[in-house]
């Protein structure tokens, strides 16, 4: 059991899903997945997560591309396998049907031929033969007509089923959008609660002389230890740098988490790490990913008013 957990946590499933493994290693992972449902489930989740990430980057190709690409693809996939083209298949069906017909007619003719042995009337024997060929021709024509009708119905049915899939796609996309919107609404509600709650203390962070234009607000709840940050303005950072929030507790800086780029641009409230107690909050610029303790001068700072209530 624990071995499986360690295996899952080793990161090999991520490597598998990202296509980093050699064929032998891939086979080994597939064998593990076949043997252990936990591994299988985890792998499916990793793949679904990456698929989700990929799908999030969807870009509808230019409309003109559709005809072009599909035509080229059809030409390429049809060329080597001529026998499998619909026309050839149809023709083969037809040949088979027509070649079956005369033998059916011959079979039904046999009793007549048997009678003819008893009463050999030559003109009578010829008549059924010619009417037989008329019937065979009529049957062939009927068969051709019915094949044509079938082909037509088949193509209509295909159109209908592709319309259906298109509608299903549309519907699932719509459902997705609704889900996302609902989730975002939930988040906004939560943010609203934070903003309206009396338990939260608003700490205004004011820019130091290094960054006089910086304005932000920290919302700190000493009871639940929740911390949110709300940026009004922060200068954009060069690549590889990121803002980091610190709580100052008894003069010591405690990492309160990295400020996401979207937050720094003022997009949203961001929930930060939980902080047990703080007298002040400060922001520094750190290398992307953050530092264990502040390495750069403070960009903005603000004290928590009446913080020592607890």
């Amino acid at each position, binding site marked *: 059991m624990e071995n499986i957990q360690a295996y899952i*946590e080793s*990161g090999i499933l*991520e*490597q598998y*899903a*990202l*296509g*980093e493994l050699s064929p032998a290693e891939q086979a080994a992972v*597939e064998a593990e997945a076949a043997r252990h449902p936990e591994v299988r*489930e985890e*792998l499916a*989740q*990793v*793949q*679904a*997560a*990456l*698929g*989700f*990430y*990929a*799908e*999030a*980057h*969807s*870009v*509808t*190709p*230019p409309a003109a*591309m*559709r005809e*072009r*690409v*599909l035509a080229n*693809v*059809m030409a*390429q*996939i*049809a060329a080597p*396998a001529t026998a499998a*083209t619909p026309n050839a298949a149809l023709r083969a069906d037809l040949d088979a049907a027509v070649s079956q017909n005369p033998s059916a007619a011959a079979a039904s003719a046999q009793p007549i031929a048997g009678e003819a042995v008893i009463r050999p009337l030559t003109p009578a024997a010829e008549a059924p033969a010619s009417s037989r060929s008329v019937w065979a021709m009529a049957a062939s024509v009927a068969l051709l007509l019915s094949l044509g009708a079938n082909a037509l119905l088949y193509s209509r049915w*295909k159109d209908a*089923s*592709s319309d259906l*899939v*298109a509608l*299903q796609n549309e519907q*699932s996309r719509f459902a*997705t959008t609704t889900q*996302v919107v609902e*989730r*975002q609404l939930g988040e906004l509600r939560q943010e609203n609660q934070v903003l309206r709650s009396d338990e939260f203390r608003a700490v205004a962070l004011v820019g130091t002389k290094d960054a006089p234009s910086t304005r932000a607000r920290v919302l700190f709840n000493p009871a639940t230890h929740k911390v949110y940050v709300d940026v009004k303005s922060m200068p954009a950072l060069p*690549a*590889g740098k990121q803002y980091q929030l610190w709580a100052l507790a008894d003069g010591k800086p405690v990492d309160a988490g*990295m400020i*996401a780029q979207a937050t720094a641009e003022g997009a*949203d409230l961001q929930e930060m790490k939980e902080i047990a107690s703080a007298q002040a909050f400060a922001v520094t610029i750190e290398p*992307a*990913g*953050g530092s264990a303790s502040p390495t750069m001068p403070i960009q903005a700072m603000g004290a928590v008013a009446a913080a020592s209530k607890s």
Partner: protein
Amino acid sequence: MSDTSLISLPPAAEADLVRRLQARDESAMTLFYDRYSAALYGVIFRIVKAEDEAEDVLQEALVKIWHAFASYDASKGRLFTWVLNICRNLSIDKIRSRQHRVGSRTQGLDDSLTAQRQAAPTTFRPEHIGLQEITQKLVPEQRQIIDLLYFEGFTQSEVAEELNLPLGTVKTRARTAIKVLSKLIR
């Protein structure tokens, strides 16, 4: 559980598509295109970063998917995962051979990342609403690692080297990021 993911056609429709492709029904490719081209093209474009090449790769991928369809095994994973991998591999091959031609193995992380950042939002605007959420939920350093792994075709060790981080850190961040993503699906 993973069936509720956004990626999927309804399972019945996916099974139907698979059946038709297995039966070598060429008209199914049109359906396939209509369903998956946006997702596949988005990924291919993010990797090769040029419209004409992205079209070539998409076309090549569709032909390959048709010819290799016998090797798709539904018990090993979803159709989308399988076709996505084919597209990713072809795209990564493309940029590798291009880098070979130009003679510089990697253009350096900063260049490639800024190029990516600029190319994506201005000329191409992914229409999927989920992207916004992802941007909010993944901290930048997680997103950077996922992008390098997924869209630049880096291995985890190459990422570690490029970002000057311990391999263990890269693995942990990649795993955490993927966890965050799978939470978003549910």
